[in-house]
């Protein structure tokens, strides 16, 4: 399978601290890939390099064969790369609907159209309604983001990331802070997206990841320690020796 998104031998250093040693990753179209690893392993840093927050000290990032290394975050986002953040990142003063509308490519393209009334654009409102329903927030479009429940806010983050019409979606610990009900709900949501676009998820919740992912990569000490299908990883020595073993 030809890869949609490729990271080649990435290295990321901050001063003389090397956080990513040598990371090579491939994500195919429609694939759901998991990334796991202990705290401080460099998973978030890896996402930050892939989505343009940091420019890698070495290596290359390609989307559909095109070199996107060193492009700025908004340029990478416009090419169809969307992400969520480990720490909740929403527009808190906006309603759920406005959070989504703000991320629509249609709105972005009219960004300098200063005579256009956002509120009068029924296409924006309709698209937002579809997305709200898709992430399980139908009927809550008028609620301020800050007033939503924690679980709803986590769902809205995915809605905002989806609204940007991505080809590939990076989710950084989407279940963090959620209880078991919330996690189950999010698993169902991500399961329903599976196959429609490429999804890459950093997750500590192994049950969650093993049930959803086609492939999993283990990152540790800034390197890809192991990768393969969930089944293959169950048999991997490192994974067996880590706290993952408790799962089985």
């Amino acid at each position, binding site marked *: 399978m030809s890869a949609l998104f490729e990271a080649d031998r990435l290295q990321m250093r901050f001063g003389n601290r090397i956080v990513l040693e040598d990371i090579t990753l491939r994500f195919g179209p429609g694939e759901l890939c998991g990334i796991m690893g202990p705290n401080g392993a460099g998973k978030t840093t890896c996402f930050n390099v892939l989505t343009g927050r940091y420019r890698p000290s070495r290596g290359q990032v390609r989307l559909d064969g095109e070199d996107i290394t060193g492009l700025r975050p908004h340029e990478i*986002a416009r090419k169809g790369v969307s992400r969520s953040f480990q720490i909740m990142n929403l527009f808190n003063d906006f309603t759920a609907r406005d959070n989504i509308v*703000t991320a629509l490519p249609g*709105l972005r393209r009219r960004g300098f159209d200063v005579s256009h*009334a956002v509120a009068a654009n029924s296409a924006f409102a309709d698209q937002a309604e579809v997305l709200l329903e898709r992430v399980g927030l139908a009927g809550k479009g008028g609620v301020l983001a800050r007033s939503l429940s924690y679980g709803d806010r986590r769902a809205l983050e995915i809605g905002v990331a989806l609204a940007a019409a991505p080809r590939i979606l990076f989710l950084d610990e989407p279940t963090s802070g959620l209880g078991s009900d919330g996690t189950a709900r999010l698993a169902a949501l991500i399961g329903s997206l599976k196959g429609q676009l490429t999804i890459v998820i950093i997750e500590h919740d192994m049950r969650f990841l093993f049930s959803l992912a086609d492939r999993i990569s283990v990152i540790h000490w800034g390197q890809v320690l192991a990768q393969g299908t969930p089944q293959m990883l169950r048999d991997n020595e490192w994974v067996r020796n880590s706290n993952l073993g408790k799962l089985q």
Partner: protein
Amino acid sequence: MDKDSRDSSRLVTPAMLGFIVLLCTLPLWIGKVGLYPYLGIEILIWALYALSFNLLLGYSGLPSFGHGAYFGIGAYAFGLFQHNIVPSLWLCLMAALGAGLVAGAMVAAFISHRRGIYYAFMTIAFGQVFWVVAIKAHSITGGEDGLLRIARLPADFGFANIDLADNTALFYFVLAIFALALIGLWRLVNSPYGRILQAIRQNETRAAFIGHNVWLYKFTVFSLSAGLSALAGGLFAMAQTSAFPDVMSLHYSGYVVMMTLIGGGLVSFWGPVIGAALFLLARDIIGAVTTGWMLWFGLLFMAVVLFKPEGVAGWWQGLRQRTAGMSGNATGFARLRALLGGRA
């Protein structure tokens, strides 16, 4: 559609229309309440200035604390253009606007990757530079003596040439410009552009990662705000038939911040207008009783910052309705904190 989104799609809202109609009648009654038409001109000019300023402070969350520089640049540009190039009202106003845009763009190019306290400091530093230049360039600006003999040029519409020397005529002229700016700004803040500015205020990182060019929005909104402030400055030079460096000082730059916050610019489109009117009314009414009026206004400002950062407009909104989930007061505090906190 609810009332708010209906209003936000309108060219002119009922409130706007009512306000402008009321202002149209102002010369008829302002003398009877013990005030004078020139005060009306001043209020409109400062309201225009504060509205432009609030594009940054309230909408984009960008603290510009040296904004008097652009107001002053507009005043000088208006005067210098009519003295040295051509005494045409329209061209002089364009010159004021253009000078503000250019000066604003120059500064914005240096600061648009910043936010929070760094942004605030840099705007102060640049503001001081322009102020010092205005004082030192004596041969051009007249230094502390000011640029004098600026004429109230007639408004030439081709078919009619209207003399603006009289305060009532000038009031209507300034009102016309104010009304156009009010309508334009209302469209702007409710457009995708305004929406993205507000998104940037709340979360710059999120805005960038959904594809918005945050730097470009911050650059353009600063330039635009400086340009419109300079237009207000041009009208000010015309009103007082002179231009002085004091409006560019840090001191005067603070006035527009006070007006905007007291009026409720952090939570309302109308905040800056309310604040400008209150400020100048307080100057004249309290100032008639005591020369220390600024002390009282300063105390009011402190009280607003400490207890009611949502300002008069937010307090009024709170009386009418409660924003779901969060009171105007909490919103005011959150936005005030975010201004200098400089997250992301």
